[in-house]
């Protein structure tokens, strides 16, 4: 199977979306933030000058605009660049887009996609490093997508745009240069977790960039005979609890690795669901490796310290298998 870099697969998805569906409009950003891969996006912009718009610095305004355009028949994909800037658009995303289908009693759909990069990015400091997916998971009505591989980013971006619902599509700049197989004709539905590594001793659940750290640790521990299963939910909403629970039933031990802040973070919810559903299967506590509950520091060693590092993942696994 052909191998692509994550950024190539993502760009391919954007290109195909533009080609296949003339309701798709791209609003804002470069979809690759300040990375050099933004030049790839420039070509898309050039090919579809009427369907790619560079808005003012008005996240609230243009996320609302995209939502309204979706209600009226388009399939807009908005790039907010950094997840932190989604905060600017919070009322339009969480109080308009998320609610319209329900409060209209099913009459009006808003199939808009909000795209952004999340997390610790190397010097982003407190105001440019948000991982908004946990807050968003507390807001019913939004689908939440977190790709981690070239195949997933392409397949999930296409599914997100095809979806009838408002979808938050969350990337990580640390993934752009990851390589992996991408089948030519492929479909990755929302709501299907992926076992990225099979194992028998402990279940490691992770998303986005943190998933790669988890995989790295799994390889290292394999040499010691610790056999880690790594599960990537891929989407938080819808959430594929069955695949997660199948793994938990097998291992009885769980570590959740995630880059949102710990309190009320993604790891909290996954832990709570597993406890509710499979308490009897657990051989010990579920351990969370999340970002510490502090604003994100600028200084490099501090930033590295607060994130879900390989050191902390390794320690959690060791504690878990006792």
């Amino acid at each position, binding site marked *: 199977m052909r191998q692509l870099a994550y950024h190539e697969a993502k760009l391919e998805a954007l290109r195909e979306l533009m080609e296949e569906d003339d309701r798709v*409009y791209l609003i804002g950003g470069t979809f690759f933030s300040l990375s050099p891969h933004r030049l790839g996006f420039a070509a898309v912009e050039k090919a579809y000058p*009427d*369907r790619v*718009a560079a*808005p*003012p610095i*008005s996240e*609230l*305004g*243009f*996320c*609302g*605009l*995209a*939502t*309204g*355009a*979706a*209600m*009226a*028949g*388009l399939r*807009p994909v908005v790039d907010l660049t950094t997840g932190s800037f989604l905060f600017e658009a919070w*009322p*339009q995303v969480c*109080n*308009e887009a998320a609610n*319209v*289908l*329900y*409060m*209209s*009693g*099913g*009459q*009006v*759909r808003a199939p808009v996609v909000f795209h952004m990069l999340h997390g610790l990015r190397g010097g982003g400091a407190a105001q440019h490093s948000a991982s908004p997916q946990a807050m968003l998971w507390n807001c*019913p*009505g939004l*689908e939440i997508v977190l790709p981690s591989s070239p195949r997933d980013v392409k397949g999930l971006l296409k*599914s997100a745009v*095809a*979806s*009838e*619902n408002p979808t938050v599509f969350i990337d990580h700049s640390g993934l752009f240069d990851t390589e992996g197989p991408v089948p030519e004709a492929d479909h990755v*539905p*929302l709501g299907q977790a992926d076992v990225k590594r099979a194992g028998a001793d402990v279940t490691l659940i992770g998303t986005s960039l943190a998933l790669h750290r988890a995989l790295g640790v799994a390889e290292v521990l394999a040499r010691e005979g610790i056999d880690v299963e790594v599960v990537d939910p891929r989407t938080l909403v*819808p959430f594929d609890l069955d695949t997660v629970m199948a793994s938990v039933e097998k291992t009885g031990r769980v570590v959740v690795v995630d880059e949102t802040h710990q309190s009320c973070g993604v790891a909290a919810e996954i832990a709570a669901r597993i406890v509710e559903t499979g308490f009897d299967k657990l051989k010990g506590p579920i351990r969370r490796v999340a970002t510490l509950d502090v604003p994100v520091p600028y200084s490099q060693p501090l930033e590295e310290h607060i994130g879900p590092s390989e050191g902390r993942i390794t320690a959690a696994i060791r504690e878990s298998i006792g």
Partner: protein
Amino acid sequence: MIPALPKTQLLAQCRKMLLVRHFEEALIGLHHEGRFRGHYHVYIGQEATGVPAISLLQPDDLLFSTHRNHGHILARGGDPGRLLAEILGRRDGYNRGKGGSFHTSPRELGFLQCSGVVGGILPLGTGAAYAAKSRASGQIAVCLFGDGALEEGAVPEAFNLASLWKLPVLYLCENNGKYGAGNAVGAMQSSTMAVYPLTDLPAAYKIPAVQVDGTDAAAVHEALNESIEAIRSGGGPRFIETLSVRWPGSETNWPVVKAPTAVDLAWDVSGIPEDVRAWYRDSDPVLRFMRELVESGQADKAELETLNRSVLDQINAAVDFAFDSPYPELSEAETDVFAENR
């Protein structure tokens, strides 16, 4: 003044104004009787804005409104029974009881969202205009909102986008604060808005903006007509501010009807309690419209009485319809969170 229209259309507009008025008065009564809960806002005093304005739109135009939406829905031809059923949270409401007063939003009439977030619809409506322009559908989007919306930052952001991208959107700002609470006496300067007149704000964004008397149906008709034409011919967004005097029944947060509307009040307000009489005499757009219809020879009082009675009958039937409608099944609470993906 009354718009220069054939009599049938004028009577149709009069009928709609009376429908709005009686609907709201009935609603207030039902609330005072404790027959429904929840907060609501009435359109009384703004009938001569919504009715002529909405009559000028095409069937496929896209509408956005706010918490003060009942009048817009009825002006657009909405069924008072289904509107009331929604306000009661019943199954036959336009939103199957899930939206309520603030959010009743008949899609079949072109309403895409009635938002309770002040200012929230301006980005949305601007987006609908973006879709219309992108697809060259010929539609326009209309945002119907209050003067307070201009205090929210979402609104200038929307103005900027609409102006830069020349989007086919009409911003209709119903300023119901003329001489109202919170405003300095004798002036129109609001205690919470430094921009005055309000049209200065869209004008700064190069959006042509005018003020009109929102209790004068002819003035509303004319301003809207001109703006809609300009928008449809590709001229980009327009802003209209309509001025009306806040109905004294809404001075508190829970409205009170001190003088039920009747045809003869248009000529004699002496029976109205003194503290609110001036409003009915000088600022009531429905009484004014009826007066002008008669003065201009388009109708006589008897015709209006007949019309009024038929509206009251319609309201009574609507109330019965709405209360006969059951509450939704509990399982409905968990549907419509997501539309099915194909």
